[in-house]
């Protein structure tokens, strides 16, 4: 009865999801790989592994390190390139029956645009996610998402030329993430995906070698959740009208609700799928139960509902110490 009135569906400004919980890019494949251990019909959607224009072989192993409550990865965006990807995964995407957000990556504005143009006509793909938080080799030690103007350039070009809504995927490794998000939105981003991994490193104290073939890598998992919730809170306060897909360390419905309360419109589960491939479904179900318990009707009823008293409010400053 109470349950009957609850719907898990969310509307990301026109992008309809059956549940607010997506499989995060690079941690869910295209969904196909997990089908044997997961009821795909129950996921909110799938964000594909980022695809580039040409095939990328990626970085040498080791490509991962376990760290306290998290892990580092340094894959280097290995992927078969957009053409082979569409050939191999297109039919599956068409038939999977849940919304697919295709994640695109590239080293130049031009490459992003070309991938987007090829990707946008695949039935089943409801949106693009521009992974601008990946290595930009044209400007060393930089990623597009580290600079509002560079980010806007990429996202703007893709948004102008593609018929699909574009989510800009941002990194927390910036001085002012709101500034970057704002620039992306002004440039035409439909929404913002937060957060990508944190740039990090681990060293083997026996061999003195970096524990990743790529030397540095991205930190993910529960360890980063508080940073991700903060990023979502900051961006949601500044851009309340902009759909936000929140992620970073989510492994339970309670974790996900933290993101919704902070201002996310939907969430994505990444690393948690590695140990519990059913996480995306479990988290969705758990959100439903919580809604019932609270007498709420929709995940949207939780959005940005965090209670911050006026005296406390104001832009968050660093309170450490």
């Amino acid at each position, binding site marked *: 009865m109470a349950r009957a009135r609850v719907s898990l569906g969310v509307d990301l400004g026109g992008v309809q999801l059956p549940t607010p919980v997506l499989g995060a890019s*690079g*941690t*869910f494949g295209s969904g196909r790989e997990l089908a044997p*251990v997961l009821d795909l019909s129950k996921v909110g959607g799938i964000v594909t592994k980022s695809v580039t224009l040409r095939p990328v072989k990626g970085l040498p*192993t080791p490509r991962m390190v376990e760290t306290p409550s998290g892990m580092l990865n340094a894959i280097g965006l290995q992927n078969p390139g957009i053409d082979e990807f569409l050939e191999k995964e297109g039919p599956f995407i068409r038939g999977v029956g849940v919304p697919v957000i295709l994640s695109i990556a590239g080293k130049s504005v031009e490459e992003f645009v070309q991938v987007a143009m090829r990707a946008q006509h695949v039935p089943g793909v409801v949106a693009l996610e521009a992974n601008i938080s990946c290595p930009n080799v044209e400007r060393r030690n930089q990623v597009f998402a580290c600079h509002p103007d560079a980010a806007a350039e990429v996202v703007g070009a893709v948004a102008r030329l593609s018929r699909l809504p574009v989510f800009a995927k941002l990194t927390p490794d910036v001085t002012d993430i709101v500034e970057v998000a704002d620039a992306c939105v002004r440039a035409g981003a439909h929404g913002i995906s937060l957060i990508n991994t944190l740039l990090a490193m681990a060293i083997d104290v026996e061999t003195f070698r970096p524990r990743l*073939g790529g030397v540095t890598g991205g930190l993910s998992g529960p360890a980063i959740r508080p940073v991700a919730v903060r990023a979502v809170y900051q961006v949601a306060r500044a851009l309340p009208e902009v759909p936000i897909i929140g992620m970073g360390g989510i492994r339970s419905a309670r974790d996900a609700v933290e993101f919704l309360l902070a201002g996310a419109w939907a969430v994505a589960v990444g*690393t948690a799928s590695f*140990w*519990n491939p059913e996480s995306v479904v479990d988290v969705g179900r758990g959100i439903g139960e919580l809604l019932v318990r609270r007498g709420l009707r929709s995940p949207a009823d939780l959005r940005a509902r965090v209670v911050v008293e006026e005296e406390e409010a104001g832009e968050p400053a660093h309170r450490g110490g």
Partner: protein
Amino acid sequence: MIRKKCEVLSSRRAGVYHTLTLVAPEIAEVARPGQFVQIAVPEGREFLLRRPFSIHEASRRGGWAGTLELAFLGTGPGTTWLTQVQPHDFLDVIGPLGKPFPYPRQLTNCLLVGGGYGAAPLYFLAKELNARQKRVDMIIGARDQDRVFKQVEAKRLSVSIGITTEDGSLGDRGRVTDILPGMVSRTGAEVVYACGPNAMLRAVAAYCADHGIPCQVAVEELMACGLGVCWTCTVPVIRRDGSGWDNLRTCVEGPVFNGARVWWEKWLREPSVPTQTPPHGFRMEEAGVGGEPWPEHE
């Protein structure tokens, strides 16, 4: 690929190794030698990822029907925890995962080479090969006597066995590759299967490639998911047609690879890698690549 909560039937010590028997009929039914399982670690720990373990035994018939046996060393936090699980505990297991060892089409004389716990999957393989009327001989290598894995069972399963220990405490002092040539000629080995430390596999594969002996190796690489979605577990493998190479996933396209096709120099990162292009094709020819002695994996 099946996910099950499996009851622990028994947890035993075998020398320095631990063996775990799990009630897992669905997995045991379809498991084949060389495949592995991913075991979830308990919640609330600071380590999160599943741990991969080769299938040491999968009993489909007889008294232990429907069970899986794993063998492992307690090294880090995950395996140390696993040494402490008790009978009747339940483990969250996903398997069978990966590609199994292929069986040879016509060739009959099989030499199985195992190092350390790497020997574990070879007993399962030996049984399946025996069941197919293949001749099985084994080489078991280890650091010392205590680390020689189940030699008695090895003897039972094979026509002859060779043992090497680095300290000479059992069998010949040295490495498996020291006795490999002799064993090959003595047993008339036509096919080699190897599992163990990657450095050992590399040496075995090099010998086989140089002598045109088809060689299948089961490798290890760090795995975040074991399910094919994270791409952390890749190994550089030369294409069958020699046209180039690809980073293949140990958990999906492996862990069993054609030893002659693994680009060892690149994978194991010798500072001495001269070039970024794969070694020229001759090895692959000699190793019978192209007209391979076993059916391609489905």
